[in-house]
């Protein structure tokens, strides 16, 4: 048995060029499969950690997924807002440690504008409870100051001190500009891999201020309040779009959720972000599963190539098999010799693929972190991936039986004198 395996390895080495190419194709396909699985996993983690540390997200009553879409991902619009009074009631609840009010509706070159308070930079966390950090500058302090996300800064080439104007409404074209009240960029956030990167942050007061001379979504004709006078008005917001709530104790989360959902003054909805994000992923994760299926098929193609190469070599090896038979190899030995070859190549290919992927992710992890904010933790193998690799080996075992069986039949038919 041991000798057979040694023989199999030496025989494979003798055909190293063709088998080497097949090995390469298998290792590439395994690297692709693992890579897709890893990116998928990281993307899902990253997605599900778009917010962390926030116990509840509160908005006007709608579906939980809808609420997450606009409150966290800033996609679509809220059907209703929350009255300022409701916000204050929730913030005053004894179970609540902190709140982040968010006000949405304006945009800047297609990027959403989010009105909030300075608490945002203190309490908003993402990923594994990572706080927001500034790659440059500091939080907004004055009325017409803005903090931009990493992607906004990169795409539009902003630096601290640049002047920007906001547009009324969301979208990219045909919007009226709040041109009379320009903002200056005071800070640029480091990449997070979350919607924060695509967001322009201003204070709630600023949102009020730019809409002072607006009514019903349009500028009031012939009426303008210059920027320098805006601060003289009462800029307390009348409404916010959503609230992120942090509790003193996580244990109180369901009680708090119920009390928000039963709030009498207006219909509100509180959702646990983790649960809602999970639901949302079920929808957007389909593409990723399709990608995984495609890379699975690439592995199958690789294995088919391997089988074709081994089967093709069988005819040239009839003499070799006859010699082995003559010195006493059983047909079963011949079967093992040929089957182990496929399995051996797949094993090597899988290991090589893993090494390849590890090397690649080690090289590109800093780049990916810098550009996309996706944290790729250089790990060798996870439990899920082990299952995937087990599957690959299982399929290759099945596929390897084919040339083994071919050789078995051939050696039975040929005996000691192959008819070539």
């Amino acid at each position, binding site marked *: 048995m041991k000798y057979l395996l040694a023989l199999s390895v030496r025989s494979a*080495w*003798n055909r190293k060029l063709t088998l080497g190419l097949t090995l390469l194709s298998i290792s590439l396909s395994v690297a692709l499969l693992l890579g897709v699985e890893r990116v998928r996993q990281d993307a899902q983690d990253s997605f599900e950690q778009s917010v962390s540390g926030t116990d509840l997200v509160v908005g006007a009553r709608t579906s939980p997924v809808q609420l997450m879409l606009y409150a966290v991902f800033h996609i679509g619009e809220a059907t209703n807002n929350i009255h300022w009074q409701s916000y204050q009631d929730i913030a005053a609840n004894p179970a609540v440690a902190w709140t982040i009010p968010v006000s949405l509706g304006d945009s800047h070159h297609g990027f959403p504008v989010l009105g909030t308070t300075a608490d945002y930079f203190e309490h908003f966390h993402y990923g594994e409870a990572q706080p927001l950090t500034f790659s440059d500058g500091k939080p907004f302090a004055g009325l017409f100051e803005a903090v931009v996300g990493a992607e906004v800064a990169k795409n539009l080439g902003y630096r601290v001190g640049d002047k920007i104007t906001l547009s009324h409404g969301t979208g990219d074209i045909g919007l009226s500009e709040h041109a009379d009240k320009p903002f200056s960029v005071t800070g640029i956030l480091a990449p997070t891999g979350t919607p924060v990167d695509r967001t322009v942050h201003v204070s709630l007061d600023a949102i009020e201020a730019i809409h002072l001379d607006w009514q019903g979504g349009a500028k009031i004709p012939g009426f303008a309040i210059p920027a320098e006078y805006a601060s003289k008005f009462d800029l307390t917001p009348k409404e916010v779009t959503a609230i992120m709530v942090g509790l003193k104790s996580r244990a109180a989360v369901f009680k708090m959720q119920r009390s928000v959902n039963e709030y009498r003054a207006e219909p509100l909805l509180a959702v646990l972000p983790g649960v809602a994000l999970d639901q949302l992923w079920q929808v957007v994760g389909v593409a990723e599963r399709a990608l995984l299926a495609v890379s699975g098929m690439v592995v199958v193609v690789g294995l088919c190539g391997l089988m074709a190469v081994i089967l093709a070599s069988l005819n040239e090896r009839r003499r070799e098999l006859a*010699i*082995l038979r003559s010195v*006493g*190899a059983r047909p079963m030995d011949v079967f093992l010799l040929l089957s182990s070859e496929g399995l051996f190549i797949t094993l090597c290919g899988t290991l090589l693929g893993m090494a390849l992927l590890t090397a690649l992710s080690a090289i590109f992890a800093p780049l990916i972190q810098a550009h996309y904010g996706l944290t790729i933790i250089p790990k060798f193998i996870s439990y899920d991936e082990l299952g995937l690799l087990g599957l690959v080996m299982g399929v290759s075992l099945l596929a390897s039986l084919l040339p083994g069986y071919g050789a078995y039949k051939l050696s039975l038919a040929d005996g000691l*004198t192959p008819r070539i």
Partner: protein
Amino acid sequence: MANPVIQIDNLAFRYPKADSVCLDIQKLHADAGDRIFIYGPSGSGKSTLLGLLGGVLTPERGTISLLGRELTTMSPSARDRLRADHIGFVFQQFNLIPYLSVTDNVLLSCRFSARRRNNALASGYSLHDEAARLLDHLDIAPELRHRPVTQLSVGQQQRVAAARALICRPEIVIADEPTSALDAERQTAFLDLLSRECIAAAATLLFVSHDRRLASGFTREIALPSLNRAQAAQEAA
């Protein structure tokens, strides 16, 4: 009295799906130390006879016994073991496994047979010593032994194959046209070496060839066409 080394009685063989019997032998007998030349032109049932003796084919009727053991009653894997333990084969050409060195090709016989390994070890030599000794006797220079076999001449390859057949003293050596790829001079030299080593090892040699001129120096000559009744019947028809 010792068992005959080879004893065939009333043997008939038919290939699966074939209409007629391919080999039909009344009797074939060989004792220890016999060196038998079997004359067999192509189509006379040579390969079939070798397959039957090697235990990779099973007869339709009749018995084949090697060293007193009846092949027809043995399981296929027991026949494989018997072949590994007691028979050395030399084929026409391409006798060697291309990815093994000369020495590893010679030792291949011992890999599948514990008995042959023990034979060598019992004589007090290591397997490599035994291989080296045989290769010496068969005029394979020491510097060739670690070369890939594909670099050897055809004559050298056949001598290495002979060493593989002879190593660890099998009782039977079966040579199937081993000289057909050699020129006349080398044919004689190879035959002499093979005979000499078989005598030295007290092995029974079965030498099959279509070339009758090689028959000198054997203890007996058998013509397969006259031995094979199936062939005779076909020619008569």
